[in-house]
């Protein structure tokens, strides 16, 4: 028997001492990818930021300067390019939501063979390379394309083609991003049970009220993730804006490429890349916040 009060109980010895030691195996497993990300992603970002802020001085050394940024934000042409990029991204996000949400809702709440075909059709663009899509677009909606030929055949006037206008990249990028957006929204809708919807209808909700009060709040995170992914890709896209878009103003992707290769101004091209990265990271933070919030739940 131990004395009452004051007695300090000895801590029992752990049966397996290795239980109390931290094992480094997990860290070792992630070390290689983390190093690769550091080398191929983080370092180029840091290097680009440094190269735009510390530039060679006349005395042979380096000096801190915001010269290239000041030029970018005071140059009408650069600002127009940034504006058209933001406009294209915004329009694409809007169209993707308007097009993909009904498709996802249909696929989630319908059964049978037709939804399976619709799903295959919605996923199909994922397997079509952007360059092929761009040329298909030109052959269909371009000047003297298939639509024009069909309209002409029935005696109707030609369409005003979106090819080489800001709408060209919008149409191409929306088409290109439909599969990923549909898949992400569909996965979010999978978490909305049929019974949750039936319960809402049971208490008197009509279909639009079910959508507004029950479905949309439940898939808010999925919408955010889908749009973040799409916007990140669209903002810095190159092929479709390069082939389908106007020569001026142009989106940031072709603009960077032309500044680097045609104008031969790598310093300015890097500045444009850092500014593009700055916008993309905002959308990236939305995505990270959404994932973190889900993990928290």
């Amino acid at each position, binding site marked *: 028997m131990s004395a009452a009060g004051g007695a300090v109980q000895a801590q029992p010895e752990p049966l397996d001492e290795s239980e109390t030691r931290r094992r480094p195996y997990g860290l070792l497993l992630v070390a290689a990818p983390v190093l690769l990300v550091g080398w191929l992603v983080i370092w180029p970002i840091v290097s680009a930021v440094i190269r735009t802020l510390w530039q060679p001085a006349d005395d042979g050394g380096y000096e801190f300067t915001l010269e290239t940024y000041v030029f970018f934000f005071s140059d009408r042409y650069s600002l127009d390019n940034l504006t058209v990029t933001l406009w294209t991204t915004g329009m694409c996000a809007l169209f993707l939501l308007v097009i993909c949400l009904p498709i996802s809702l249909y696929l989630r709440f319908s059964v049978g063979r037709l939804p399976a075909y619709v799903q295959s059709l919605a996923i199909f663009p994922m397997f079509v390379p952007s360059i092929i899509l761009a040329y298909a677009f030109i052959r269909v909606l371009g000047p003297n394309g298939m639509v024009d030929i069909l309209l002409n055949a029935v005696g109707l006037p030609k369409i005003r083609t979106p090819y080489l206008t800001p709408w060209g990249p919008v149409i191409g990028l929306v088409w290109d991003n439909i599969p990923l957006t549909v898949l992400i929204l569909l996965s979010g809708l999978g978490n909305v049970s049929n019974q949750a919807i039936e*319960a809402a*209808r049971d*208490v*008197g*909700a009509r279909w639009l009220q079910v959508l507004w009060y029950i479905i949309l709040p439940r898939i808010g995170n999925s919408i955010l993730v889908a749009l973040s992914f799409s916007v990140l890709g669209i903002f810095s896209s190159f092929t479709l804006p390069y082939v389908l878009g106007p020569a001026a103003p142009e989106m940031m992707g072709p603009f960077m490429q032309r500044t680097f290769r045609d104008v031969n101004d790598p310093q300015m091209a890097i500045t444009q890349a850092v500014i593009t990265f700055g916008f993309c990271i905002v959308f990236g933070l939305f995505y990270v916040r959404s994932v973190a919030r889900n993990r928290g739940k």
Partner: protein
Amino acid sequence: MARLDIANVTKLFGATRAVDDFSITVTDGELVCLLGPSGSGKSTLLRMIGGFEKPTYGSMTIDGEEVIHLPPEKRPTGMVFQSHALWSHMNVFKNIAFGLKLRRLPKAEITQRVEAVLDLVGLKGFGERLTHQLSGGQQQRVALARSLVLEPKILLLDEPFASLDQHLRERLREEVRDIQQRLKITTLFVTHAQDEALSVADRIVVLRDGRTEQIAKPAEVYRTPATPFVAGFIGQMNLISGVVSEGEFGHSAFNVPVAVADGPATLAVRPEALTLKPASGVGMGHVHRVTDYGTHAMIDVELPDGERLKSMMPTADEWSSMQQVDLVPGAFALYRDNAAIYRADVGTPPRKAPSRTRGTVNA
């Protein structure tokens, strides 16, 4: 309070008849249990009443008004789902208030009605909790409150306690019965648990393959089951196949006098109506296993043809494995062509089958 009339309702899914020519009238304030095994059509029937499925044929009226073409949101019914179906992005208060909000009631009235129903289901002060912070039982109470707050004419409960543990189920079903009695709300309760149906229902509908086997009060369903299926499904029952010949039901182990025409029949006797007597010499069967439940003992008796019967006895003390016993059935019923043809409230002691019969059967 409301009256529900269902007439000749049939539901086809392709070639499958989920519900086949079902009719019932549920009166004001009555609690009717739809009981049956999986696939018997009980949930489909409830979903048709709630408006989530449309009958292929038939009619459904609530207080004389045809509701068959009304969508769920326009029906005067409230449904409680098996999985609770609470909306996890809303707290308890908002879950319950949602239906009232859709009806554009004043805020003060919504608050007053939600608080009242929370009090009714024993969740006073839980309004601000998120649904995932509640236990399974509390979640089911919120689901019940969500339906009750709208004061539906008919309350539909679709296996509401199926996901809860036994102890909680027993407590909740008593609470639901109390609430139903207090509000006098007409209720249909789907369950596959016979004890649940027997303990809460005013009437039980036993369904099998979409068809009605019996509609009766719980005691009647238990004591005078209309078909061998009901006899076997409700409670424990010994079902013994045999042949009636010259006024006796004959089995390889025993014969029982019955006043029915000759032919094949099934004898149904409950374990509590089957008494055992130690046999002096070779008995009708022998004890295979004795299970002591404390309050009573269940004795498994093996007949010479290998068939096993259960007998409920007050204690396990006087029975042991391989002991020779004779059987004394009390109340029993005889079934033929899926209908009861004979009932005996107090059975006549059975006669041991002549040894030649046993010999013949066992050969």
